[in-house]
């Protein structure tokens, strides 16, 4: 009896030991990874510079105010389909599209599209988690807030602070590349919506002006991306944006400086740039920009 019951036990033990042996090998592999990491070179850009430049790129909420002012007509077709998230496997794709979806989220929220909002919110959260920066989104709160259109402001606020904090954190963590990509994604999507959205006819000019102003922002972005241009994916992005820059060269901006002021907008303190800049941009250029940005965006959202 005794002999018979111990037999399976011994077998199980033997099996266990063999397997744990295998596990040991696996650990070995893990430490190899660790060892290598120490030798790796780091960092291309200075942290403060990146921070400053990124802050000049419009974040999703800025776009919201732009669109609200312009009274644009909502169009679902402009959004990056939520299902595309499954195709984003690399950090490069994820970061860009985190920006894209963030922009979409804000765009939708303005028009009370609560049902779709949840999916986009979940996508933002998912991409952030994949990039291991999930700590900046309190998913539960956002989820709760999204249930009612009265909370739009709060959702926008949390999303916005989430994006800001995320950028700052990434830069501090030596992951500026990710931060830059998120901003680039946001910028491209904003520009895409701005160039493709339908507006009340009289307001088109206002939007076009804002588009023209992006010339400077693009310069900053390219500066940041330049540091990473050698990396495989950055490569095409940089080149494409360079092409865009060439189109933007047709835009003329004259600048009249005035002291900026602070103002509270929906509970958020924002800096109002009081400097007047006069933007001269032809419809032809707008169209060219629209086409180019659509082309780049198609590549971005995969």
């Amino acid at each position, binding site marked *: 009896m005794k002999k018979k019951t111990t037999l399976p036990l011994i077998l199980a033990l033997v*099996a266990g030991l063999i397997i744990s042996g295998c596990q040991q090998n696996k650990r070995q592999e893990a430490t190899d990874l660790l060892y290598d990491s120490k030798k790796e070179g780091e960092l291309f850009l200075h942290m403060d510079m990146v921070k400053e430049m990124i802050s000049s790129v419009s974040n999703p909420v800025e776009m919201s105010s732009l669109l609200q002012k312009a009274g644009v007509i909502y169009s679902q077709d402009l959004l990056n389909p939520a299902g595309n998230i499954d195709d984003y496997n690399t950090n490069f794709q994820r970061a860009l599209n985190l920006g894209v979806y963030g922009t979409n989220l804000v765009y939708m929220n303005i028009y009370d599209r609560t049902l779709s909002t949840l999916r986009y919110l979940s996508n933002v959260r998912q991409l952030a988690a994949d990039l291991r920066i999930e700590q900046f989104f309190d998913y539960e709160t956002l989820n709760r807030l999204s249930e009612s259109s009265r909370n739009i402001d709060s959702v926008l606020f949390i999303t916005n602070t989430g994006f800001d904090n995320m950028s700052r954190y990434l830069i501090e963590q030596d992951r500026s590349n990710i931060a830059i990509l998120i901003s680039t994604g946001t910028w491209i999507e904003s520009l895409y919506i701005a160039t493709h959205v339908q507006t009340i006819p009289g307001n088109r000019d206002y939007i076009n002006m804002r588009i023209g102003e992006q010339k400077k922002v693009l310069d900053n972005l390219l500066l940041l991306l330049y540091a990473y241009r050698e990396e495989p994916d950055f490569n095409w992005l940089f080149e494409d944006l360079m092409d865009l820059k060439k189109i933007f060269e047709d835009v003329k901006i004259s600048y009249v400086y005035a002291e900026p002021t602070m103002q509270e907008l929906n509970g958020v303190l924002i800096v109002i740039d009081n400097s007047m800049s006069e933007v001269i941009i032809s419809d032809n250029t707008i169209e060219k920009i629209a086409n180019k940005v659509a082309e780049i965006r198609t590549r971005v959202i995969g």
Partner: protein
Amino acid sequence: MSEEILKALMQLFALIAKQDVGISEKERNFVENFLKQQLNESTVKEYLALFDGFISSDREKNSENTIESGEHRLTSVKDSVKTLGIAKKINRTLTQKQKIVVLVRLFELINSDKNFTPQRMAMIDTAADVFNITREEQLAISTFVIQNDSNKADIPEILIIGCKNAFLEHSHFIHSPQLDGKIFILRIKSVDLYFLKYKGDDEVLLNGLPVKSNRVYLFANGSVIKPAKGKPVFYTDVAARFITDPTGLHITLRAENIYLTFPNGTVGLQDINLEETTGKMMAIMGSSGSGKTTLLNILSGIQTPARGNVFVNGKDLYEQKDLIKGIIGYIPQDDLLIEELTVWENLYYSTKLVYKNLSSEQITEKLEKVLISLGLFHIKDLKVGNPLDKRISGGQRKRLNIGLELIREPSVLFVDEPTSGLSSRDSENVMELLKELTIKGKLVFVVIHQPSSEIFKMFDKVLILDEGGYQIYYGNPVEAPIYFKRIDNQINSDIGECPRCGNVNPESIFSIVESQIVDEYGRSTGKRKVQPWEWANFFKKTQKTELIKESFRELPDTSAKPGWLKQISVFFGRDLKSKLSNRQYILLNLFEAPVLAMLLAFVIRYIEDPSSGSYIFRENDNIMPYLFMCTIVALFIGLIVSAEEIFKDRKILKRESFLNLSRSSYLYSKVSILFIISAIQALLFVWVGNSILEIEGMFFEYWLVFFSVAAFANVLGLNISSAFNSAVTIYILIPFLIIPQMVLTGAMFSFDKINRGLGGGSEKVPVIAEIMPSRWAFEALAVNQFVNNEYEKQFYTMRQLESVFNYKNVYYIPELKGIIEQYISNTNRAEKFPIDPLDIELLYHEVQKENNSEYVSFHNIVFNDSDKLNINDFNLEVANDLKLYLDDLHEFYRQNFNSINRRIDNLISEKTSSPEGRQSYQSIYDMHYNTYLARFAKNTMAPLPMVRLNNKLIQKIDPIYLNPQNNSYLDFRAHFLAPVKNFMGGQVPTLYFNVGVIWIFTILAFATLYFNALKRLVDYFEEYSILKRKNNKN
């Protein structure tokens, strides 16, 4: 006897009587007497006239022809032919026993005037030959009828009862000193009939009726001869002289002063004494509830009395149980048959369990013999069926039950109510079978209720119990009515059986024993005339202790039973055969698992994208619930298949406990069959379920877990089926066994969110869940599905590192730093208690952990002053040091996180760089990775990524990437969904470790089953509650 036969007999008598010398007065008287025995007065005359008619008609013919002896010869030839014709006619209607009786009567006829002419003898020979009676027996009969001298009757077929032993060489002898003359007893072995003849002048009574000298009487079962003076001679005494047990075994069973009290306080048995020896059949009778079956159980050793002993050949039945067990057989009232098997198979497996050395030919031969003697040979291939679904009759079932014991031939056999529910014909058949056993030298105890006279007389002795377990009679059955009548002062009290028909009415005993006092209106008062204890006292006074020479011979060796392994194979074969022959059972069991799997999998096969028609495994949110359901289904199927197994076999086990068979071999065979069934069910379930849900490449692992759980449930089911005594109880119990397992798998309710009193929300899995095999199974499946799928495999090691570094970088180190910063600022503000002692403990604890971390050898960042991390030594300096240390550590984790994160990214970029690569990457991703399960395994829904429990920080996110930290060598407990388990200093993947744990549970359950621990527990509680109730009453 029919008219026709009687007529034929008269003719035969006439034919023989008239030969040679013609009929004498004595012969005619004999015929008249013979007829008087059979018929009433008027018909006797009628038949005597017929006889006379036959004689005279023949005589007339004879008188015409007596002149020439040649013609005379011719007539006797004619008569011979006639005899032949009559004998043949008789042959067709009479049984062998009856034919023997006829022959005896023929001899008696010619003996009445001693005219043994050759003609007459030749006629008798002719008749005997036609009757198929052997020469030896013919000779024995003629010797017995004719000879009155003991010396001339000295043949082995004859027994002589007399006062002096005249040197007899062959015949048997019983000494009866005061008897005048001799009593001769003839035994016809082939039909087991006894005849009696008395030669002497005393008044000798046969069953209370006087015996005429020199007349032959049938000496039937249970008869008793009483000489005028001296001891009576019983049938069994006679039979015992003739029969010598072929095995030469002599067994005595002696019960002394047996007392028994039931747990509820009622008295079961009071001072029972008995003594029996080989070759006897004893009846235990009594009104219902008087303790008959209890006594049988005590004598057979199933139950132990409160006081008193039972000795078998001088060996204590209860102390030397193992020695005695094998020679005891027990046939309970209920069936012992396996319903699904045929008559033949039932016997076959029984035989296999009893004899190890028989070849299959020998077994076949043996079985055929037994089946023929049971009269069951023609139905040997019928299934036994159950009493509701009758295939064979009640009598046949009973005979088959007895047949099971016949094969084994135990020396002492206990039979509980063998005739209940049987027709009187079947009852007699069954009793004759048992009687035959005593002739083979067995000792048989039978509990019997309301036996017919015929059956009652078969017993050698009867023990009568009265209410309250009093022994009120023990002795010869025919004597019993006489005894009670005498005490009751009834008329005819000396006549035990009906003088005309020879019936003994056992009912008359009970009507005397239980007769009630009637009031003046003749209504019975419900009070007994004679109380049981009074009867017992009467009995004690009159009891003559009749000493039997107790045998102290060694008991036979019963070790012919097969060995342990062989037993397993016989049990296994028997069980398998009975299961296979139950088509419903097989079909249900075979289809249960795949049908459930299909139902389950089909219902939860879900396509997330409402616009798409193609199923993507990755997007199916139901995989985690599926894993959960797998474990529950396994438990259910495993339990249900086994829950009735032992319960169903209970009765058979009770019988087989006398065979001294090994319990473990029975259990092993049970378990192996169930395991095979479960393995097949697991195979079918996993195959169907996983195919429908398109779970790729995990077949073996799923099967292993499913099978392990089902196997555990099998053994668990066996436990309850052996402990509880009704099917309903067993099925009521199943929810109690399943629901806690469902609740505590960790799938339905997060261990973080269960009652803290039960260990919820702590670092490790709550102890209460650790004892649930379902939790181990579910964890094994979930971890394995996540870690070892084709997609995750590519990255798991890297992602694990990434997760560790991320946790430390984002949550862990900042939290520690926060505590220190709080301290520094508190100190600067000169607060009285700048730091909570618990915080210090926490710092100490966590720094120790970091100092011992597996990465120390890479970064060499160690905090050397950890001994100063206590409330006394902690100061600003230490705090600053600690802060610097944590900064270094933070930097290390940050860098390594970035590095590993980039490496993973590069790997993916590389894989997806080409369109084909991208496609294949995506398809692996879609086919093997499951998003919802991943979310569950990474615990991303957790409200907090890290919690603080007193002096510890506990990681709550990414449990699937967190290797458990254990301090002690044997501590295997871990957090839920840990990818590996620490055990004996190594790490075992969760799948195999958990499966091991389930098997340890299974082995433990098997041990409790083997030692019947659950049954003992249940019995203990039952007894306890009875005692409590009794105390409450008092």
